[in-house]
């Protein structure tokens, strides 16, 4: 009986917890929308203008996603299949675009363009948005594809190479094996690109997401904004459903290689070509934008780095503590969700997190404000718990995917052996599964920390009065600040994230060494 109850609790407490914190608020918002506006709200969605706009947005994001996946996959392949000097350096530095907020990236790239080709050059177009999205999102494909490639067993490749050429082996064996990683990269980038507001808005390109924002903020038209959000949500859900139905076993961002010892190739005759390719990407995606930020920081009529530090320094502690606690809580939720999905075959919490992940940040913010702003819940509403709840909705899915991959790589035989020896479920989990998952947990913690540290969309909607957080302060100060001050703040922001990553890297090396089981 006790066992049954504990199993029931382990299975359902998380679902209840997520339901109360996030699902009910979203459902309440949705029900209010339907009851307030009825059929007119739904029929309004299928107007010709809406359909054309969503078609255009898909074309833009689809193109960006396709090209970003191709570029990232090529980089992932080169960096995980060939041996050459500075490989580790390239792997690390090419991830930098993920760390710079995309609106800062857009500003830096536009300024770089004008510096190179003159101030009068007009670059406001769909092409520029696609270009910036490719640069910002291709590291995602690089990570996922790289991870997939490094898990391919060398025996398969070697057997293939005995019979066929390298080119044929690549086309007939390796690419088909890692194909799901291309699809998941494409889908994730497509969703990120579709839901991005800042880059299209900056370049004056109208997309479905900018339209939702316009309805919210220029017209205060909740009916239209909610309707369009639901429309976008349904489309993203269909995409993500296909992802979870057909690709949930695809590598996402694996930390271990499960003893697969991937095959590496020498590239003596390709060395120059590979270095040129990677240096060119480094130049376009990293060096140029960062150089522009430096250039602008020191180009103003006064030196503003000190002032920028004075403005941002009070936010560092609060932002760090909040991002660290959120990363911890989210990793625990991710661990629980992924364990239920992978070992108990109970997918509901994972599906809930997936749906929350694709809800536009403004909608999520309004949903949790509407639900928690009650006198009896003031202890939540008036505290930073609101931000943590928002972060759970935004990022717990990513953590669950990373940890799901980690769990899948732990041989079931270990747990089966423990069961045969009569070891209980909890002890088995604490003594076998958890220690083996520490590297994945650590990776999830670091990635979620970075995402929480820079999140703006939900944070600006829900942060409690009097709280000073770095992304909010950066955004509100930079609105009317001189360019040199904005660039100085970007550099400081960037520097702080890099310092954290450096610290995590040092800790991570120890963690990976201690808990590696290869």
């Amino acid at each position, binding site marked *: 009986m006790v066992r049954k109850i504990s199993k029931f609790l382990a299975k359902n407490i998380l679902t209840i917890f997520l339901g109360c914190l996030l699902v009910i608020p979203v459902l309440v918002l949705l029900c209010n929308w339907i009851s307030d506006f009825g059929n007119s709200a739904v029929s309004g969605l299928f107007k010709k203008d809406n359909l054309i706009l969503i078609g255009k947005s898909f074309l833009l994001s689809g193109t960006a996603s396709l090209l970003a996946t191709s570029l990232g996959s090529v980089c992932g392949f080169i960096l995980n299949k060939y041996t050459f000097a500075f490989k580790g350096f390239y792997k690390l530095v090419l991830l930098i675009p993920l760390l710079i907020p995309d609106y800062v990236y857009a500003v830096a790239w536009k300024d770089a363009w*004008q510096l190179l080709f003159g101030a009068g050059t007009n670059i406001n177009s769909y092409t520029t948005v696609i270009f910036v999205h490719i640069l910002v999102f291709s590291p995602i494909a690089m990570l996922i594809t790289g991870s997939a490639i490094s898990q391919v067993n060398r025996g398969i490749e070697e057997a293939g190479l005995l019979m066929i050429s390298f080119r044929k082996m690549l086309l007939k064996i390796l690419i088909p094996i890692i194909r799901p990683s291309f699809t998941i990269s494409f889908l994730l980038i497509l969703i990120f690109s579709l839901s991005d507001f800042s880059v299209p808005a900056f370049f004056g390109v109208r997309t479905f997401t900018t339209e939702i924002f316009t309805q919210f903020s220029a017209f*205060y038209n909740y009916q239209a904004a909610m309707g369009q959000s639901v429309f976008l949500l349904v489309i993203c859900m269909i995409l993500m459903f296909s992802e979870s139905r057909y690709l949930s076993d695809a590598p996402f961002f694996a930390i271990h290689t499960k003893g697969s010892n991937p095959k590496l190739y020498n590239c003596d005759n390709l060395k120059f070509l590979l270095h040129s390719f990677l240096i060119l990407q480094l130049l376009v995606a990293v060096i140029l934008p960062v150089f522009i930020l430096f250039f602008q920081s020191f180009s103003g*009529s006064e030196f503003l780095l000190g002032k920028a530090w004075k403005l941002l320094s009070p936010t560092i502690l609060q932002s760090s503590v909040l991002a660290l*606690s959120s990363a911890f809580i989210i990793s625990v939720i991710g661990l629980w969700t992924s364990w239920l999905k992978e070992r108990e075959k109970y997918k509901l919490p994972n599906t809930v997190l997936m749906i929350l992940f694709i809800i536009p940040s403004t909608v999520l913010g309004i949903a949790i404000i509407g639900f928690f702003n009650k006198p009896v819940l003031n*202890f939540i509403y*008036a505290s930073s718990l609101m931000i943590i709840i928002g972060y759970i909705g935004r990022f717990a899915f990513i953590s669950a995917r990373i940890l799901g991959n980690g769990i899948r790589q732990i041989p079931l035989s270990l747990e089966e052996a423990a069961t045969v020896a009569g070891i209980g479920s909890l002890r088995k989990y604490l003594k076998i599964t958890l220690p083996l998952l520490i590297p994945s947990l650590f990776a999830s913690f670091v990635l979620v920390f970075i995402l929480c540290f820079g999140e703006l969309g939900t944070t600006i909607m829900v942060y409690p009065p009097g709280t000073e957080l770095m992304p909010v302060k950066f955004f509100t100060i930079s*609105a009317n600040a001189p*360019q040199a001050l904005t660039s100085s703040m970007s550099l400081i922001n960037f520097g702080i994230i890099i310092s954290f990553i450096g610290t995590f890297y040092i800790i991570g090396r120890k963690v990976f060494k201690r808990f590696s089981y290869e």
Partner: protein
Amino acid sequence: MNKILSIFSLIFLSIIYSGCKNRNNEVIVYCSVDQIFSEPVLKDFEQQTGIKVRPVYDTEETKSTGVLNRLIAEKDNPQCDVFWSGDPLRNNVLRLKGITTPYISNQTELIPRYFRANDNQWIGFSARARVLIFNKKLITMDSLPGSILDLIKPKYRGKFAMANPLFGTTTFHVAVLFTYLGEEQARQLLNNLKTNDIVIATSNGDVKKRVIQGEVAFGIADSDDAFEAKKESRDVDYIFLDQQKNGIGSLIIPNAVSLIKNSPHNENGKKLIDYLLTRETEIKLAKSCAQMPLIKDTEVPSGIPSLDDILPMKVDYDQTSQTLEKTQTWIKEWLEK
């Protein structure tokens, strides 16, 4: 592992504790005026009165989405005491939704009647003006347009920028033009501006940046943007448009402050409003961002324009709000053409 768990538990409990604290001696203000200018004023209030100010900042450049939507969502259980906005339009949105409440005091009476809502649900102070900001390297003072109506002349084709009229103070400016010129003429003006290849920037800050960088020769922005631009670059200057005798005048946009209905710290909210409506605050804002005091006989720092020296556009703020509602859809279509 236990140590890590203890640290995170402690942090978690302190976060919950922060939400449970009893806070009587405080005031919560939602502010869409740029933080770089509003924060020092709120800090001074805190020092002078001992009342803790807990602000939530947003900005016109982010279209006030955060605070406005938050205030609307919080309508049934208000958390905010005072809303300080960069223009009266946002306050009018809240007023129409029944979120603000009238406030009258000795201090509000110092503000000219013209810069207050008829029912005192918002009170104006320290105003900005819409100005023409230009790059001296690209256009001489003599060649500049004297009126907003001159922008349709072929010689200015593709040379000027304006922020997206769906957001920020540009919304207000366009709505005023619709009220002043009448719907037909205003539509004609905007269509002609489009034919003359007007550059639509994302915000006034973006207009400022494009002028400084020389991407366009001039643009329409707010006087505080122009003031900042002059500090950033020696090549930039600004003028007030439509200052000719019988001209339509320059649009004056006051800050606006509102008391929130059923707010938790109502009395402290009133004290903050009274503080914002003092001469001292107006002088501070004049010094920091060139805003023009509205209280009569307030000393204007040198280099800052005074309302006495400008021909202002005659605006009925309530009527403009109504016009705005009617014209927004057309303006959106105009933008998308």
